[in-house]
Each structure stands twice: as C-alpha cells, then as structure tokens.
C-alpha cells in the first residue's frame, strides 16, 4: 500500500490520500494530474493496474466528477481514484479509453448522465438516451420537465464528435462512423438474435461484417436515478429487474453491500439459503444460455430441452419464493421467508436428474460437427483483450482469465464449499459455451454439498424499521451467471442512497462485440453475440 502511495505522490504531489483501514487506497486527484498518472498506473511495474473495475460518475454537489476503481490482477491490489472536474458548466476530464478499452463505454455513459466531456475520447455520443435528450438526468439539479415524452422516431446520426485539447483550449472535431455508400444493416432493436431490445448497426461487405456499432438504452429505465429517491429496502426491488436471469444474485449483492455497511451479521441459515438459490439461479441461467445459443445457431430442438429442464428449477423457486423469474427473496438481514418443506427433496431430485441430461445435451449438440465448425476459432478473445475490456464471468474464464469472485474474493459461505473455477484457454465461442456447461456441473456439486447441512435457526436477522447507512462509500460484488455484478453506494448518512451505481457485467460484453465480430461473417456475429450471453436490461438499467 505504501509503495502505491509513494509512486503516486512522486507523479502527483497534490494528491490527497484518504486513510482507511483494511480498504483499498483512496486518492483524490486534479484532472490535470490524472492525465499524467494514467500511463504509470497501467505500466509501472509496481502498480500494473490492468483492469478498470468501474467508472462511476458522481454529482458531488458543487462539482461533477468520476470515481475510478482500478484493480491489478498481477499484484492483486486495488485503488480508488476520485477526480472532480473544475467547472460545472463545462466539465472536462481526461479520457482513459486509450489505456483501458472498456472506458470507452463507461465514459459515454457518464457523458450521457452527467454531461462530463472526456478529452480525447474517440466517440463522445450518448450511450443510453436519445441523441436529442435535453440535460443530464443524474445531475442533482436535473429537471425532468425539460424532456416531454417524444413520440417521433429517433434519427441516428452517422457521425460523432471528439473533444480534442489544443493548447489548453477544447475543440470539437467531427468524425464519421459510417460512410454514405456503406451497406449498413440494422440488427435490432427487434431481432430474434439480440435477445432483447438491443440494436447493432452493422456495416457489411457481402457476408463479411466490417463494423458493428452498438446502440443501447431501448429499455433504459433510470434505475440508478430512481434509487436515489428510495429507501434502502425499496431499492432491493430494482435489482431483480436488471439481469432477470441472475435476479437472485443481483439482489444478494445489494443486500450484502447494505449489510456490510451496517455491520450486520446474517444468520448462517440465511447464508446457506442464499448460496443455494444463487447456484440454482446460475444453473437456470446457463440452461437458458444453452437453449438460446442452440437456437441462434439454428438448432431448434435443443432450445426446448434447455427450457424443459430450466422449468424444474423455476418450480423449485416458485415453491419457496412465490416467484419464478423475479423472486424478491433476499431482504436486508437474510431472506424473506423460510424454505418450502419440499425444497430439499425437489432440489436433490433435480441434482440427480441433471447430469444425465447434460450428457444428452453433449451428445446431441456439443459433439455435432456442424456446431464445432461454426464455433471453433470464431470470435477469439485474448486474455489481454478480456482484461482491457473489463470482461468478467464465464466469457473471461473462457479466455483463461481467472476472475471468479466466489474464488478470489469469497463472500457469504463460498469459502467453505469446494468447487473448481472452470478455465479454458482459447477464448473462442466453443470455449465460452464449454465454460458454461462445465459451470453447471460445478454448481450442482456446490448444491449437493450444502443440501445436507443447512443449519437450523433464523432465516432473517432483526432489522430496525428505518434503515440508515453510515456516511461513506461502500462496494460489494458477487459472481452472477454473467460475471461480476457490483454495487456501489455513496451514503450521506440518510435513509436514501446519495448515489447508487450498479456495475453491470453485460455492458463490457456488448462493448466487445465490434472487436470480435469485425472481419467475420454475419452468421458469426450471431454466434458471437449468443456466446457472450448478455441480457439487455442489465446493460440498460
């Protein structure tokens, strides 16, 4: 920790450090100093922050700014950098996108919501909202009345702007995305293969994909803004609506973040139930992945197999939680109600049933020669790219990037169960598929380990009627079926969060589509999209 401090102090003498125990280094920097620090942060042998975990836009009250969270997979250390823009009227910050590729999308999001211009960013467009949106909604002084409901179609511009620094003065330069005579096909927002309302503008040359431009935000609901006016127990309901296939895990993250902030102890029984439900969610999500992946490749029969078996898990969910897709089960301090009496019996039946079915899956689809030829070597994602694009979860593990939060930063009772972190080497579509199929087996093993020894006791700790968090910044992440889902809470000691940021695992996944699909065929674009397994409500929030 001291080496990090000394290196940073050498480059930026004005850096202000915040002293915290057992927490990552927190530092506040000026915009000009941040620009100087970026390269050393990534390249200095003692720092090597190769993974940009999150980039949170903030309205600090008087000033706007960004909180960066960086992590080094080499040294296994973390740093939190806070940087405020000088002026509120024309907020400007240096871009990180030339160093961490994922910053491209994160900074567009911050520009969209806070209006901060990132100098040198290659494509400063709004990411979620319409290009004719007035104002920046996550600023505290935003007036919703400035944007009456628009019923006309949005015209997508073919060019973008870049903010360039010329001797201290910022200039805007135009930049063309698609030339006039390019053959641009719109895949989405209504398209069978985008798995939701996502829009790819694809430039084609015959069957070859030249460029993919992603448009998000068709189901953007402003969940983060809504949360700012909700009490903590109310915000829980939002998490299930993000990645609806990892509804339970998302909620686990938020509950755990609030519990950690309050210093609350969660009963053992509740932790067992949470982990059991997490793993069941993971299996049902991966089964759905199998189903849709096969369908996108044109094999329609396995689609039904995946759904048939997923239904069994949904029935187990329904018994205990009352919900199938959205369970609303985790609450602050534990879970909402105790397990259904049939839970253990039904779950054990399922755990015994699934391995046989998985073998069938492999027989009918995995070992099919057409499938192999269509997925092997397609959409290669190297480990370096995965890091730079901030990719987590099964997609990263297919590129041999060990990033399982359950393993490397265990939460709840994951440190007590035995399971293998599935890693594959090639990073192609086949490996991304295989990782998920193997993870189903690992999850089954976790479930069967826990099923026998669920302790008796309370399923929920007692909480105060009004939940207030102490002042500070809190962060918690869990491993969902798609990757690392993080919750960032900035609390000012009230019963509402001052800022609540969800770190979505799927936004990095769509940001990499262009890189993976360019130069491949249209059919490969679909295969790549399916193998990334993104869920659109999680991207849009």
């Amino acid at each position, binding site marked *: 920790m001291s080496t990090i401090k000394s290196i940073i102090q050498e480059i930026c003498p004005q850096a202000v450090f915040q002293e915290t125990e057992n927490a990552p280094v927190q530092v506040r920097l000026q915009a000009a100093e941040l620009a100087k620090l970026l390269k050393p942060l990534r390249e200095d042998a003692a720092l090597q922050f190769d993974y940009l975990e999150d980039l949170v836009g903030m309205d600090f009250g008087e000033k706007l700014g960004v909180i960066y969270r960086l992590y080094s997979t080499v040294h296994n250390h973390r740093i939190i950098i806070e940087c405020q823009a000088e002026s509120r009227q024309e907020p400007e910050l240096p871009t990180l996108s030339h160093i961490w590729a994922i910053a491209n999308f994160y900074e567009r999001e911050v520009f969209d919501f806070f209006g901060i211009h990132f100098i040198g960013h290659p494509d400063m467009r709004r990411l979620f909202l319409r290009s004719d949106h007035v104002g920046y909604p996550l600023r505290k002084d935003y007036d919703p009345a400035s944007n009456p409901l628009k019923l006309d179609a949005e015209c997508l511009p073919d060019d973008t702007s870049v903010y360039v620094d010329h001797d201290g003065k910022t200039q805007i330069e135009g930049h063309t995305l698609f030339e006039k005579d390019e053959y641009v096909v719109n895949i989405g927002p209504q398209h069978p293969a985008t798995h939701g309302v996502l829009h790819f503008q694809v430039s084609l040359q015959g*069957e070859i994909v030249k460029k993919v431009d992603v448009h998000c935000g068709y189901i953007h609901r402003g969940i983060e803004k809504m949360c700012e006016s909700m009490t903590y127990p109310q915000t829980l309901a939002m998490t299930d609506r993000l990645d609806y296939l990892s509804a339970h895990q998302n909620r686990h993250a938020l509950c755990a973040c609030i519990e950690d902030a309050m210093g609350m102890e969660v009963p053992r029984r509740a932790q067992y139930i949470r982990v059991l439900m997490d793993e069941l969610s993971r299996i049902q999500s991966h089964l759905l992945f199998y189903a849709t992946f096969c369908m996108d490749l*044109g094999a329609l029969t396995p689609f039904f197999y995946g759904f048939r078996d997923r239904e069994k898990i949904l029935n187990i969910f329904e018994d205990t939680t009352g919900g199938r897709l959205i369970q609303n089960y985790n609450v602050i301090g534990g879970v909402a109600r105790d397990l259904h009496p049939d839970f253990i019996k039904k779950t054990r039946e399922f755990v015994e049933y699934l391995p046989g079915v998985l073998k069938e899956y492999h027989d009918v689809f995995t070992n*099919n020669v*057409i499938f192999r030829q*269509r997925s092997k070597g397609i959409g290669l994602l190297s480990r370096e790219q995965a890091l730079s694009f901030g990719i987590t979860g099964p997609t990263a593990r297919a590129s041999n990037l060990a990033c399982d939060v359950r393993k490397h930063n265990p939460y709840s009772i994951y440190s007590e169960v035995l399971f293998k972190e599935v890693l594959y080497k090639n990073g192609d579509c086949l490996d991304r598929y295989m990782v998920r199929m193997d993870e189903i087996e690992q999850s089954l093993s976790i479930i069967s380990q826990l099923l026998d020894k669920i302790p008796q006791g309370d399923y929920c700790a007692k909480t105060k009627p009004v939940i207030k968090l102490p002042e500070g910044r809190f962060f918690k992440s869990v491993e969902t079926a798609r990757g690392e889902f993080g919750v960032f809470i900035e609390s000012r000691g009230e019963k509402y969060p001052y800022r609540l940021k969800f770190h979505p695992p799927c936004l990095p996944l769509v940001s990499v589509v262009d890189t993976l699909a360019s130069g491949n065929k249209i059919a490969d674009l679909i295969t790549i999209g399916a193998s990334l397994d993104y869920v659109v409500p999680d991207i849009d929030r």
Partner: protein
Amino acid sequence: MFDFSVVTTWIDEGLRGIMPASGAIAIECVLIGVLLLAVYAVFALVLILAERKVCAAFQCRLGPNRVGPWGSIQTVADMVKIITKEIISIRHVDSFLHNLAPFLVIIASLLAFSCIPFAKGLQILDFNVGILFMVAASSIGIVGILLAGWSSNNKFSLIGAMRSGAQMISYELSIGLSIMTIVVLSGTMQISELVESQNDLWFIFKGHIPACIAFVVYLIAGTAETNRGPFDLPEAESELTAGYHTEYSGMHFGFYYVAEFVNMFIVAAIATTVFLGGWMPLHIPGLDAFNQAMDYIPSLVWFLAKSVVMVFVIMWFKWTFPRLRIDQLIRLEWKYLLPLNLVNLIVMVLIVALGWHF
C-alpha cells in the same frame, strides 16, 4: 397389380365418344389442372401438419391437438386464415416483380409435382427426357426467390436471396449429377421407364456402392435445394429474421410456405422414384412367391410409404442439426460433394460398361 391407366383410358374414350377429339382434350386438360391443384394443396396441408407433429415429437411437445381429432384439421383452419389475410402492399418496391415472384415459385413447384409417378399409370407428364424436365422445372423456383429478395427493397431480403442463389445453383449440380449416375445405370430418362426397369431390383441395390453414394449425395443436395434446415440460410431466422420473404404477407407468403413443403415432398418423391423403385414393390429375383405377395400391396401405397419415410428423414435433419454457415455450405458442395459425384459418375459408367451391377 392395378393399373391406373385403365381409368384414364376409360374416361378418355368416354369423352371422345360424345365429342370431337379437341373438345375431349380441352376438358381433360381442365380436369387434370383442377385435380393437380387440389392434390397439391392437400399434400401441402398434410405435410405441414406432419411437420408440426414430427417436430413436436422431437421437441417433447404435443403439437396441434385442439382442432379436430389429434389436431388433424388444424392446418385446414390455418389455410382458411391465411387465404383471408390481407396482402399488405409495401411502398418503394417494384410491385410487379414483387407480386410475380411467389407465382414463379409455386409454378416451378407445380411443374415438378406434375412429373411425379404416384402409382402405376398415374402420372401426368411422361416423356423421353422426363427426369431432366423435372430437374429443370424445379430450378425455375430460384428465379422467384431471387426476384423476391431483389424486389422487396429490404436488405435482409437481399442477403437472403443472394444466399439462396449461391446455394441453390450450387446444389443443383449435385442433384443433376447424382440423378445422372442412375440414368447411366438405367439407360433412360423417361420416368415411367425408370420405374419399370426397377422391376427386378431397385436401383439403390442394383447399382450397389455408386448408387448408395449417389443416394446420400442426392439426399444432402435435395435438402439444401429445398432451403430446409440445416441448409435454411436464405431464411435463417436468427440472422435474417425471415430472409427473402421478410416483406411478404397473406397468401403471397403462403405460396412460399406451401411451395417449401411440397418441394420437400418432391425431393422425397424423386429419391423414391430414382433410387427406391418409385411405386414398384420390393422384388427380389428368384423369390417369386415373395414378389407376388408384394404385388398385392397397391402401387400407390408403395410410393407414398417410401416417400413418407424420405420426408421423415428430411424432417429429422432439420430438427437435429444446427445451421451451416454460408462458406461452409459452399465448401461442402464445391470441395466435397461435386468431386465425389464426378468420380462416382465415372465409377458408375465403368460398372455399367463392365456389367458389374446386378
């Protein structure tokens, strides 16, 4: 064995007895035309129902089971619905070509359909280059598909049409060559003679190895020719939404749909006729009692039973395999099937010349 030509000659003679020959021919043409259309439509309905049932069985579902016993008149209800549906006219399209395209597809399919020998003496078109005519007629359909893609003024349609152009023209070669292999063996292109000459043994047994290879190649190419999975790239749902018929609605879409199903039957029927003896019962030289017993089964039943098996196999492909990619599809044809076929043809020529067949 009952010969259907008895019926047709009786009608013909009856008509000629009461009117001049030209009148009789005119009435017969109308009768045959109406009959052909009716049979075509019935086949399409039955096949669509069969596909839905078969697909449901593969996918652990029940399929249609509400309208009529076991859902048997579901497709009739669907037909009534699609006929009454509005045909939406689209702006900015070449409306003449757009409206013409589905008719080209259905005409091609109908022409090929009329060459099929359903039973002994039950065949509409039969002349000395019948099988050649059949292959040629069925390939007119590609023009309709290309026109549909081009005239729709839709990028997905155009990509679908280009794919289908590349695919169907390529696989036409394999179909032609594998049928050619059998033509070499039989020495005739007339469909009725092709069937008759399988009296002693079906061609797939007569021509043994090269015939079996030709059969497999024909089945692959035939599936590709009908744009069915795993070769359904022109309408790849997850890639091109609906491919070349994206912009079609109502009965115009229905024509493509019906043609696709009947084309599947035509492919199965050609496979039956050329390789599996058509309506000819299973005859094994030397077993006279067995052959006579086989003759008691009507020829129509023989033909339909064999075709149904072939149709089932083609459906089986579709509901099992994932879709190929366009470059793999073209590679399969030009690098593997075509050379194999050419070599196979030469082998067949040698076998016939040396008399090594049964």
